[in-house]
């Protein structure tokens, strides 16, 4: 028990979780922006736009996140000299955010697209019959309902993003949870199970409220038909 308490004073575990939360929040922001652009391209009637968005989504959906993270560090940074900052830690953090955002944007795009699927065709037909033009129908009738329908898959995507933020270890972010756990196990091999349980329950505690909030919001905001 002593060793268990000692772990908390020796290592700053909450700070490691904070790094993961930061990674998640920044990536959520950027991937939402990129995902919205992608879904707009994907549903547009313009062939070249929706082909490019389709290729993007298909590419990132079928690509391991680890290879993207490794590419960000060994390819984009080491070979192509793309860097965000001269400080190593900051640079790797933003490279990881870039990788996570590019990857998650494909899933955000798919979530929003499935939100549009929850709007019955009759809504659009009724809007046209009332004489609304494309812009009015889209902004006042279809998109408000589509956003409500996409709450659930978006929540799922962001839960996956929080779990995926541990893969930042592959992008040399040394302060996040999986790297800290690895380091702690190395020095305290006798406490391997308690160390794992600390981190595992950390994630359980983070993820269960997000899941419950998403379910609540999704039911609350759902359009009753």
């Amino acid at each position, binding site marked *: 028990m002593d060793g268990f308490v000692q772990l908390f004073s020796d290592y700053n575990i909450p700070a490691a979780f904070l790094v993961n939360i930061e990674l998640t929040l920044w990536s959520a922001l950027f991937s939402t922006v990129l995902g919205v652009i992608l879904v707009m391209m994907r549903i547009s*009637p313009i062939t070249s736009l929706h082909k490019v968005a389709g290729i993007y989504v298909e590419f990132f*959906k079928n690509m391991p996140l680890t290879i993207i993270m490794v590419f960000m560090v*060994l390819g984009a940074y080491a070979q192509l000299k793309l860097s965000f900052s001269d400080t190593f830690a900051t640079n790797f953090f933003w490279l990881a955010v870039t990788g996570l955002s590019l990857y998650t944007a494909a899933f955000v795009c798919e979530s929003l697209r499935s939100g*549009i699927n929850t709007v019955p065709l009759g809504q659009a037909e009724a809007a046209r019959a009332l004489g609304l033009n494309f812009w009015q129908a889209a902004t006042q009738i279809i998109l408000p309902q589509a956003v409500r*329908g996409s709450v659930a898959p978006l929540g799922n995507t962001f839960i996956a993003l929080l*779990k995926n933020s541990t893969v930042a270890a592959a992008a040399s972010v040394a302060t996040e949870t999986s790297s800290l756990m690895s380091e702690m196990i190395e020095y305290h091999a006798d406490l391997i199970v308690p160390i794992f349980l600390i981190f595992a329950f950390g*994630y359980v505690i983070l993820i269960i409220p997000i899941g419950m909030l998403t379910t609540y919001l999704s039911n609350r905001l759902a359009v009753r038909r």
Partner: protein
Amino acid sequence: MANAPGESAVLFDQPGPKSRRIIRIVNWSAAIVFAIALVLVLLRLYNPPDGENQLSWELWKPALDGEAWSDFYLPGLWMTLRATILAVIGSVVFGLAFGIGRLLPNVVIRSIAGVIVEFCRAVPVLMFMIFFWRFFAFLGVEGEAYWAVVVSLVLYNGSVVAELVRSGVGNLPNGQREASLALGLTHTQSLMEIEVPQAVFAMLPAAVTQLVVVLKDTALGSIIMYTDLLQESRRLGSMYFNILQTLAVAAVVYFVFCWLLSRLAEWLPKRMQQRTAAAVEHETVAPIAIMDPSNVNQIAVAHEMKQRPYGGAPRRYHVHHRGSNASIREWRRTRYMQGYDETHPESQRDFQKEKEAWPFFKDNGKDKPRNGDSGSTHNQ
């Protein structure tokens, strides 16, 4: 528009001559912008700020020649596939055991299975991998990285499959269970002999989608020094200083395998529908977290119109209880609470509304006159 008829039909009218011209102009200008972007990327690769030409054959040749394939990629690919196959078999076994465990009448088994499944779904796979890697090394297991990859993938994907089994059973029509109970089977027998076999077919497309996740997640093994395809391509890249090229080759190999599996998952639903009374999920959403919020029911409601070819009144009760959500037993009850009985379609009728539409059906004097009809003319 070819691959997204649904969304386009909701959002866009058939374009007229004027908008068709605008679409054509925007289409070509967008294509030119993308082409320019592609050329800029290639130029950057050809002439990076300080580094060598990334497109030169000296860098690509060692990443593509026979030696690279026979000594690095193919052994790596074999390691990746080996872990994938074992993890898939393991997660199906784990998923069936715990999925059925969560449905059994026994409260103790049900709650233990529930806690384990929810725990395994919430913890990131990489955490599991690092833990088991060190743990197996500590126990002195041979090939600790391989077993760490397999066990972690089994725990996570197995718990996802468990949820798929559970939702598959929950999506079956009530009649299946009622008929088997009426025939004298016990709850457990009905579950094992009638419900789960059908649930397995309903969940198969979603499970194949999960295969893609297993294949993708084996790449996490490279973080714990498992010599999979990614790790081998990194080793080759550090030998010839052409990591960009070797990573590109590995990425193409991963993509091809995942893409083929994705196509299989898209092709399966049609096949599987014949073998089960439940609705096979077409757009599969992996239940990745607790309560797994999903909008499959909302999508099903939106597509109800296709089942009513001549239109007709919108349904009063949308009987879609799909997806794996927290309490399937509750869904069974809500059907009765809502008052809709699938065996009697006439219960879709809204008698209250019909009464309002046809005043003759009004009970004499019992209903208060509404604001609209000012009076007692036909009440007397």
